């Protein structure tokens, strides 16, 4: 109970800050629109058959790009205000820090997807996004975003204490999030095709999300302990050679 309360308090703090400035929502939302326009320009001449095959890829590439941007900002704000070390020193469960950042990231990603899905649907009408089962579509997008954010939050937090290392986040994030993005891609294709196995793929995605959040939560503290400068405690002092 205490963990959920702490998570909620930390997430509410971030969301309130966001509601005052709207920085993340505006920048990530605008970036999403730019991407939809760029996809529209780049793939303008796709014929109807190709649209249905290409749109799932565009959707999840878009989520991957917006996700990297969002994760950088979620922790960048802490770094600029120098509050990340304070957060680590605060008497809260470290797991609550992970979960609260995860919640914020997923919310921003879901908001961006809410722009991107209709955007892609109207630019590429032959893909038939608007004809798809809305419940399946929403759960698919949410599951994909959660899995992506579960991996991303861990590594963005690990890089949060180092300025100018954001390029490493992209280096880490894209290879590591491939499994969940691939699953999301498969599920989106099946959704657009009206495939009967859609719900079984969604169930597998749910299992994958649970596993990713679990591993992320398990590793979060190990990765972050001593994240501040010159804090490198309790290692064996010398190697016997």
């Amino acid at each position, binding site marked *: 109970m205490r963990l959920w309360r702490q998570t909620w308090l930390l997430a509410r703090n971030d969301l309130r800050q966001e509601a005052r400035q709207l920085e993340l929502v505006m920048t990530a939302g605008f970036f999403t629109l730019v991407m939809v326009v760029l996809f529209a320009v780049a793939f303008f001449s796709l014929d109807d058959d190709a649209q249905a095959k290409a749109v799932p890829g565009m959707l999840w590439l878009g989520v991957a790009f917006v996700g990297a941007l969002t994760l950088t900002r979620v922790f960048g704000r802490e770094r600029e205000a120098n509050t990340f070390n304070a957060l680590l020193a605060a008497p809260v469960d470290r797991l609550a820090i992970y979960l609260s950042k995860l919640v914020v990231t997923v919310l921003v990603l879901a908001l961006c997807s809410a722009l991107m899905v209709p955007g892609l649907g109207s630019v590429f009408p032959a893909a038939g996004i608007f004809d798809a089962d809305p419940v399946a579509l929403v759960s698919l997008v949410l599951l994909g975003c959660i899995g992506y954010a579960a*991996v991303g939050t*861990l*590594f963005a937090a*690990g*890089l949060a*204490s*180092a300025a100018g*290392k954001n390029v*490493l986040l992209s*280096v*880490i994030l894209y*290879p*590591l999030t*491939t*499994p969940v993005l*691939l*699953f999301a*891609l*498969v599920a989106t*294709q099946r959704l657009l095709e009206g495939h009967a196995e859609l719900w079984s*793929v969604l169930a597998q995605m749910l299992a*994958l999300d649970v*596993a990713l959040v679990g*591993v992320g939560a398990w*590793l979060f503290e*190990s*990765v*972050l*302990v*001593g*994240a501040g*400068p010159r804090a490198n405690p*309790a*290692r*064996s*002092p*010398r*190697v016997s*050679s």
Partner: protein
Amino acid sequence: MKYVPHALLALSAVLFPYCVQRVFLATPIESQMGTAQKIFYFHVPLAWICMLFAVVCGIAAGVQLRRRSDRAEALALAAGEMTVLAGLGVLITGPIWGDATWGTPWTGDARQTSTALLWLVFVAYLLVRTYGPANAERLAAALAIFGAINVPIIYYAVKIWKTTHPQTGVVGSLPQDMWNTLWVCLLALLSLAIALVWIRAGQARLAIALDRAWIDAEPEPAPA
């Protein structure tokens, strides 16, 4: 224990010429794929070595995170480098073989894609180790653990996405002659790989110890 890598290097030095002799002169030419199949004796052992050291790197990284062990950290680093090296070999020999037998170097099937992604993850591991911030070794360890967990998931994901492996049954249906040659090649390459990882891990441990000695020798900053 000190001379184990030397012994392994000597073993592989003796075995390599024997391998080449066996592969090209003693083993019969495969009936369907012809001489192009000879690359199999290097491709498959390299792929196994790549997977093996990916798992070793993931486990060592886990131990490193849990126990803060320098030994495990050095082993993880060396195993990560070997994974990238062997993976590069797999990714070069695979398309050559594929081009000769399937007519196209890249079919994008489950095994190819998962190997390529595994390779990317471990390149990212080395990049983070090399260019990362102060806590890079912990971050990289988490990356290696995720990487090792990801491999089967990627394999499965690509499999349900694209199920067109043209030659799944190749390894299972080999005559005994070819199996024997494969084992000899595997032994040569594996002993070379273990020796290299062993030497590199020792060197990485020394580097870590040197870093630590450097930090310990630095005078404490005077209180302001």
